[in-house]
């Protein structure tokens, strides 16, 4: 029965191929939530990583503390100098906050788009398949993390939540962003209005973000700060993204494109904050599309 045997192999190869293609198709479409088995597997790997990560993190942190102790004197001198500056800033800040509150009161809005409740998390792993720029953090749906939330470090935005399991979630880094992950942002101008633009992707070669759709009339300088605008509906506003590095006209000459140097280091990430926006202006059913 060699012919039957050969046919059996052929059929199983075909079936396997169909199954694989179905799986790829199923997982590549834009999903709101990953399935329960996937969440379970993500959590299982997450727990193993947490177990090993805890002592390593502890040693790492102690070394850092140790190094800090040696620099205390220098830092103290610098900080003393800064303190005087801050005194003035605090007063100014208080006044502005008060004014802001009053103004908000007059238009009947209690919270701005910039407010968010932070969820502290630690990075426990990074994708070993390097075509995917993603990291795993040790906070998940149980801690209030949801898909598409902004993830920041103390320096600035690093990415957004891609999928959540019960206790762990994966974060897509800025370096893995493409045309389908737009962030509406503002280039901060000292005088005049902020300039609007959309982060449209990441230039792998130079390691910079591409900010497109800028008005042709707008004047941008090197070093201008770029922040999130919060208009997309998911990200809070005023998250630091980076600074303008290079400006050029786009291929059709209708808008300008700027290359942005990310503010945060995308390679050494330890502690992150997941920004859960306080005010949900619209039901995020389809409104989140701009940033998803």
């Amino acid at each position, binding site marked *: 029965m060699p012919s039957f045997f050969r046919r059996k192999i052929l059929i199983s190869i075909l079936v396997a191929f169909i199954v694989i293609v179905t799986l*790829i198709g199923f997982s590549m479409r834009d999903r709101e939530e990953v399935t329960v088995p996937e969440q379970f597997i993500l959590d299982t790997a997450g727990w193993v990583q947490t177990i090993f990560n805890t002592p390593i993190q502890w040693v790492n942190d102690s070394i850092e503390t140790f190094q800090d102790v040696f620099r205390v004197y220098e830092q103290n001198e610098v900080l003393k100098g800064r303190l005087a500056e801050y005194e003035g800033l605090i007063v100014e800040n208080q006044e502005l906050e008060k004014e802001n509150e009053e103004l908000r009161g007059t238009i009947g809005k209690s919270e701005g788009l910039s407010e968010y409740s932070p969820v502290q998390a630690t990075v426990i792993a990074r994708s*070993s398949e390097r075509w995917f720029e993603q990291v795993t953090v040790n906070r998940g749906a149980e801690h209030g993390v949801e898909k598409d939330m902004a993830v920041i470090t103390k320096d600035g935005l690093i990415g957004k939540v891609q999928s959540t399991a019960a206790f762990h979630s994966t974060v897509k880094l800025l370096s893995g962003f493409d045309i389908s992950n737009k962030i509406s942002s503002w280039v901060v101008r000292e005088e005049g209005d902020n300039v609007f633009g959309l982060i449209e992707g990441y230039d792998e070669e130079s390691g910079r973000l591409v900010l497109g759709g800028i008005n042709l009339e707008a004047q941008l300088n090197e070093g201008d700060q770029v922040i999130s605008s919060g208009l997309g509906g998911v990200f809070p506003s005023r998250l630091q993204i980076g600074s303008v590095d290079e400006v050029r006209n786009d291929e059709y000459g209708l808008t300008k494109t700027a290359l942005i140097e990310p503010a945060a280091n995308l390679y050494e990430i330890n502690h992150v904050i997941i920004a859960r926006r306080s005010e949900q202006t619209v039901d995020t059913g389809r409104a989140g599309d701009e940033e998803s």
Partner: protein
Amino acid sequence: MKHVWLCLLALLLIALEGMAMNLLPSSLLYGEWQIVPHWTLLFVLLLSIYYDSNETYQSLWYALGTGLFVDIVYTDVIGIHMMVYVLVVYIVHGLNKLLQSNVLVVTLLVLFGVVTGDTLLYIIYSFLNIAEMDWGTYAMQRLLPTMIGNVVFFLFTFVFLKYLMQKLADDN
């Protein structure tokens, strides 16, 4: 019982792959040369060489399982590592039948497995528009360092894994 041990070891390696990417110094990982750890693939390759006899194909099931885990934990697209791991393990299993197994041959087999696996992944991911790198850059910046990195890891863990797998296989 021995399957429990092997599964735990596989899970541990999958978890460690990602942790290594996070913990190793970034100057080593994110410089000009990009090393991709394929430790799980190494594990299933050794499984097919030392654990399976010429007639048994249990390592294929391990390849299927670990591939699925890697897909879910580290990528967005399910099914690709699964397919590649099974394919590579099947080829290496076939080659292993023809060759006698001494250290040099096993190292070459593993090297062949890693290179085939990584290249297949690159080809599939570029079809899916996930990998955007031309062939020359890929070969120099990624394939070569990956090859070296994984062989170094293999040489470090080889003795332990070989001992473990032969012991478990003898219990059959």
